[in-house]
């Protein structure tokens, strides 16, 4: 069920990423201030935007789970958060590489944008131990959804707070004054954003398909392990780990 449409989505993602990389390296002009190092932004910023939106999307799915008690939404929420955490790792690493090249430091602790993203990332890193500390599946899903809703609401609040903090050193991609991108750079950036967002959707779908298939296999194993009528001896089969 989840695998439906995965193939065209994967092809679209590959095409979009190829187009984005071509635009970054062969179309977008060099930045007057930063030069070639600014090319990292075409990867770093879309990854950050997608990861943050993914966290919020995970919260929305969690709301649907709490409202309907349908475990499908819990799976959606979990996978959305999981993928956004992976993207978050990429955001932190690519951001650090840019900071080292541009500022001479891998990390700057008095920069609100960096620290706030790290806080959001670490908060979501606690989602896994929190979730898997609960054994009962019903409670696990419910508590994880409450976490996802609370944390998902924190993400936009955190974003707005950082924007209002008037950062001194972190550049703004969508600034209205003194920093807005020219047309060719903005076009390249938007293609990159679309490509990274497509990649996120594709990987979420792939993960959901794998989880669904794994669940179906467990069901099949349970059905085959069930003793036939009249027999009290279960046919225990160890699950392949």
């Amino acid at each position, binding site marked *: 069920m989840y695998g439906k449409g995965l193939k065209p989505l994967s092809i679209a993602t590959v095409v979009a990423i190829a187009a984005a990389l071509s635009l970054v390296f062969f179309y977008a002009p060099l930045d007057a*201030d930063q030069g070639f190092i600014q090319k990292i932004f075409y990867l770093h910023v879309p990854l950050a935007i997608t990861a943050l939106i993914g966290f919020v999307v995970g919260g929305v799915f969690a709301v649907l789970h709490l409202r309907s008690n349908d475990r499908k939404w819990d799976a959606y929420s979990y996978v959305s958060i999981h993928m956004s955490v992976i993207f978050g790792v990429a955001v932190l690493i690519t951001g650090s590489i840019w900071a080292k090249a541009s500022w001479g430091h891998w990390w700057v602790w008095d920069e609100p944008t960096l620290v706030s993203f790290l806080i959001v990332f670490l908060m979501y890193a606690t989602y896994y131990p929190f979730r898997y500390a609960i054994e009962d599946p019903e409670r696990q899903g419910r508590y994880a959804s409450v976490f996802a809703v609370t944390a998902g609401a924190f993400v936009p609040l955190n974003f707005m707070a950082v924007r209002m903090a008037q950062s001194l050193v972190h550049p703004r991609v969508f600034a209205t004054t003194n920093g807005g991108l020219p047309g060719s750079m903005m076009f390249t950036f938007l293609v990159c954003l679309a490509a990274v967002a497509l990649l996120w959707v594709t990987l979420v779908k792939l993960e959901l398909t794998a989880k669904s298939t794994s669940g179906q296999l467990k069901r099949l194993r349970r059905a085959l392990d069930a003793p036939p009528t009249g027999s009290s001896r279960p046919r225990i089969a160890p699950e*392949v780990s």
Partner: protein
Amino acid sequence: MPDLLFATPALPLDEAGKYVAGAYIVFLVLIVVYVAIMASKLQRMERELRELAGFAETRSQGEVAAPGRGSEGQSISDSFAPHGAEEAASDV
């Protein structure tokens, strides 16, 4: 644009290039690692599915050979059929 960025001159290409390459390679490596993990999961599921299919076939054959007896003594683990080249070829 912030003051610091104005004060920071653009890096020469040979120096900036390694940072840009590093950032894009990190992204690529993360994707490849993720795909490798998913591939190992897929392999595990395939192995498990083959195991279950073998068990189901053995059970149905046992029921045909000895109707009424059942196949209580067997487990999925016991019913592993050797997955040789012929079987692999027939799967394809």
